[in-house]
């Protein structure tokens, strides 16, 4: 395959990079009251733009449309809490090293005393439409998934006791639990499928300039500890993954 570097050139030509981030996933990407998008992934996008020396345009994407946005050229780059999966790699250009990782976990009421994944069997579990965690608990543990359009609605359903758990990624749940609005809930299970998150460029760019560049960005983020810092900035529980990666990519010459 010949590299055309189409997207890369387009970014340069335009002088703007368009990055798709979430606007409905606090604290990775969400709205401030003026409508702007802020959050950890928004910050990452900003650094990419700064490194390229171009302007940044953030586009809010959703789980259900983020890959199409990238495929269709609506965005140049996607940093949108997406788990790195094999079938997804066939559609979008996910480049390593992964910038984050999370596992599947559930938020359940303390009162229920859930201790094992198997407790979910044949019980209603709320999920988010388009999230792949649904598939896991449904197929692996036989839970009945009720999927809503947004986290807010799913969490509301959990509070209304319409389901016994909310299945999502562990870091997001941890963030919610830390917010103080979910004191009567807990995350009692061991995360499953610790799954790295992938940012993605258009698939044609994966092994070309843009893909390689993004690989490098992620590498240097890990190396400099930038991601750990961002995690802290946005009040996310420190993940073992980021610490590990930071250690792993540490500059051997640094003191």
């Amino acid at each position, binding site marked *: 395959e010949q590299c055309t570097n189409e997207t890369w050139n387009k970014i340069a030509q335009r002088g703007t990079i368009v990055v798709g981030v979430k606007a409905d996933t606090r604290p990775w990407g969400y709205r401030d009251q003026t409508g702007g998008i802020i959050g950890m992934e928004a910050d990452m996008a900003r650094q990419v733009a700064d490194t390229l020396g171009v302007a940044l345009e953030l586009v809010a994407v959703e789980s*259900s449309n983020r890959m199409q946005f990238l495929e269709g050229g609506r965005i140049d780059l996607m940093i949108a809490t997406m788990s790195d999966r094999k079938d997804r790699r066939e559609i979008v250009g996910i480049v390593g090293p992964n910038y984050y990782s999370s596992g599947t976990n559930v938020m359940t009421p303390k009162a229920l005393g859930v201790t094992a994944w198997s407790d979910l069997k044949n019980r209603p579990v709320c999920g988010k439409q388009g999230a792949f965690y649904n598939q896991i608990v449904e197929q692996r543990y036989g839970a009945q998934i009720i999927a809503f359009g947004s986290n807010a609605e799913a969490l509301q359903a959990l509070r*209304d006791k319409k389901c016994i758990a909310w299945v999502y990624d562990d870091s997001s749940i941890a963030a919610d639990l830390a917010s103080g609005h979910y004191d009567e809930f807990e995350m009692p299970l061991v995360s499953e499928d610790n799954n790295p998150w992938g940012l993605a460029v258009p698939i044609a760019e994966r092994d070309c300039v843009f893909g390689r560049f993004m690989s490098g960005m992620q590498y240097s983020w890990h190396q400099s500890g930038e991601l750990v810092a961002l995690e802290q900035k946005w009040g996310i529980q420190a993940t073992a993954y980021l610490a590990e990666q930071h250690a792993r990519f540490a500059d051997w010459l640094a003191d």
Partner: protein
Amino acid sequence: MPHLSRRRGAPISGPLMLDAFSEFFRQLAEDYPRWNFVFFYQPVQAGKIWTGLQYTVILSLACLVFSVIIGVVGAWLQGSKRRLLRNLVQGYIQLFRNTPPFVQLLFFYFALGQLTPTYSPDGWLEVPIISNVGWAIISLSFFAGAFNVEIFRSGIEAVPDATIEASEALGMTRLQTYSHVILPLAFRVSLPALNNNLVNLIKTTTQAFAIAVPELLYQAVTIWNDYPSAQYPAMLLLFVVYIGLVGIMVLGMNRWERHLAIPGYGN
């Protein structure tokens, strides 16, 4: 396999056909990755589609029935002598006609859902008496019902005063006039508009997916989230199924309309 089937005396075409059918789509998915009709060869996905179809049909039928009942009762209440009652019906109609059904669904489910009694099978879970399917039926029925009230009311208005007078002049009571003359005529007049509204209702049932009713669209979205390659096929399926459902509905209503047609009346 064919030997086995034959020995059992079962018709071989059935399973063979099915095998060939799923094999064809499995192959198709391999040759054309964008056309992964996963629900035609993978039992779990097929089950989802089948459940979705059932929910869609149940939802449509239930809403159809309730919305018509709401329409008839509402039209009758609108003829009431009590101003308050009429105003209440009016308020209801305006409320439901002038807000998006999509938001209505969410609001019904989350807002009113908190106020309905619940029972608890396990001490924590509070299963509302009205499930999300129930709320979808209620919400959509009231939505379509608001239109039906108006439809029946204008049907009643279309009955000429003179015909009503004739029946009064024959000494019929109000109730007799209503049930034997006004309603049968009004109903016929209302049929085309009713037909339209009910078609609309069937189309609107897709919006129930906002509150996680596992109807066809919900299942289709689930499938294409799990299998991005099944996106086109799932949409194609949606399209075909809904056109089919609406088609059946229209055919049925047209038949009924013809059945009710009075020679030399209307047209």
